[in-house]
């Protein structure tokens, strides 16, 4: 879901950077110093989880899990993903610095949406079916939201010329869409079995 640097015009990059700064500011404000170790550890856990591949056909697909990160981190996904994206630029030459703002919004805004819509449900004790639904929704809103946002940004930036590019983007992310939903549901089920207390740590 990363939009490569060089595709978007400067205006879009600046808008994205400004929105990202606001998001990070809100995320930091809402994170007490007491919650710093927890936030850092979850951020690290999701970063490492994002390196896990799932084989699909001849290739493989990375996990994204931004929806689930939203469940566990809330607004803190903004600073958390900022760190992740920065590391990805350094290590994988993935994306770029000027486009960081845009990519951060693409990943983090759907995650915040998941937090706002679904966050409270983790505080309750849920049945197996409900947990699966919660996990799947988090995955779908997370990845789907990111694809939608990326598409909107491309459309905003390049207009009709980019429609095919957008179609390509959406089509290539359909497997990720499903896989993220399935894995998110699976993770919530496993956590409920192994360490239900963890589910209550959500902000």
């Amino acid at each position, binding site marked *: 879901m990363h939009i490569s640097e060089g595709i978007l015009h400067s205006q879009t990059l600046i808008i994205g950077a400004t929105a990202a700064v606001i998001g990070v500011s809100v995320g930091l404000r809402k994170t007490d110093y007491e919650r710093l170790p927890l936030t850092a550890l979850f951020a690290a856990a999701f970063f*490492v989880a994002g390196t896990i591949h799932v084989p699909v056909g001849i290739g493989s697909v990375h996990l994204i899990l931004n929806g689930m990160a939203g469940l566990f981190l809330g607004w803190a996904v903004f600073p958390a993903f900022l760190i992740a994206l920065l590391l990805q630029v350094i290590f994988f030459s993935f994306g770029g610095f000027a486009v960081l703002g845009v990519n951060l919004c693409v990943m983090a805004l759907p995650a915040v949406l998941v937090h706002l819509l679904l966050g409270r449900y983790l505080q309750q004790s849920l049945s197996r079916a409900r947990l699966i639904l919660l996990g799947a929704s988090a995955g779908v809103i997370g990845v789907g939201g990111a694809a939608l946002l990326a598409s909107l940004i491309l459309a905003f930036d390049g207009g009709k010329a980019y429609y095919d590019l957008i179609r390509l983007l959406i089509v290539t992310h359909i497997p990720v869409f499903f896989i993220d939903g399935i*894995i998110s549901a699976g993770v919530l089920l496993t956590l409920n079995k192994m360490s239900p207390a963890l589910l209550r740590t959500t902000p």
Partner: protein
Amino acid sequence: MKPAIFQPHFRLIFTFVLGLSVSAIQNPQWLLSLLCLTASALLVVLIRQGKPLAFYLRRALIFNLFTLLIWLTLSWKISENGLEWHVAGMHTALLITLRMNLILCTIWLWLINMTDSILVQAVSKLPLPDKLIHLFILTVRYISLLGELNRQMAQAMKARGFQPKFNRRTFSVIAQRVALLLIQAMVQVEKSEMALKARGFRFASRSSLLDKPWWKTVEISTALLLIIGIYYAQR
């Protein structure tokens, strides 16, 4: 002594500004000349530092598979005469290809030899809020710890003959792996808090820009301005 401009935190800012500027260039000739310039400089630096050229070449080729895709999607247009060349689209594709490659070379050139520790040090020198810097330092450290755990889990599974495929069992195993990462993260929180306390780290709120009561207003107004700006830019 290296000139100040080569300090890691300046290099970060520089790369950001460069990325922004390059994205504003509409002239393919300029882009091409800049690309040649940067690519040659990169080549010189790579050779002088004894880096494996084959590695970078391979990466560049894989990167350009993506640009190829962009060419394919932008160059054609379906019109009344059927499939035909879309000249404007090709021009855009050319610009994008040149920009993307230029930025790739720029990043490679300016951020060569940057490791995660240097990145963290560079970030801590930037005028960023303390909270973010602490979060950065801790997160990068824990990525190393949890990454090690992840590697061990993957090895242990391989040793027991597990082969990831597109099936239900793989999904279940991967879900378990992610859950274990989160659980380990949780376990580490308590130890981390104790260790921070032992070194005198204060868990109290310090006076910073973020905590000023009027900052929230700044956030909301900027967001509103952005939304209005986007709306008008669209019309």
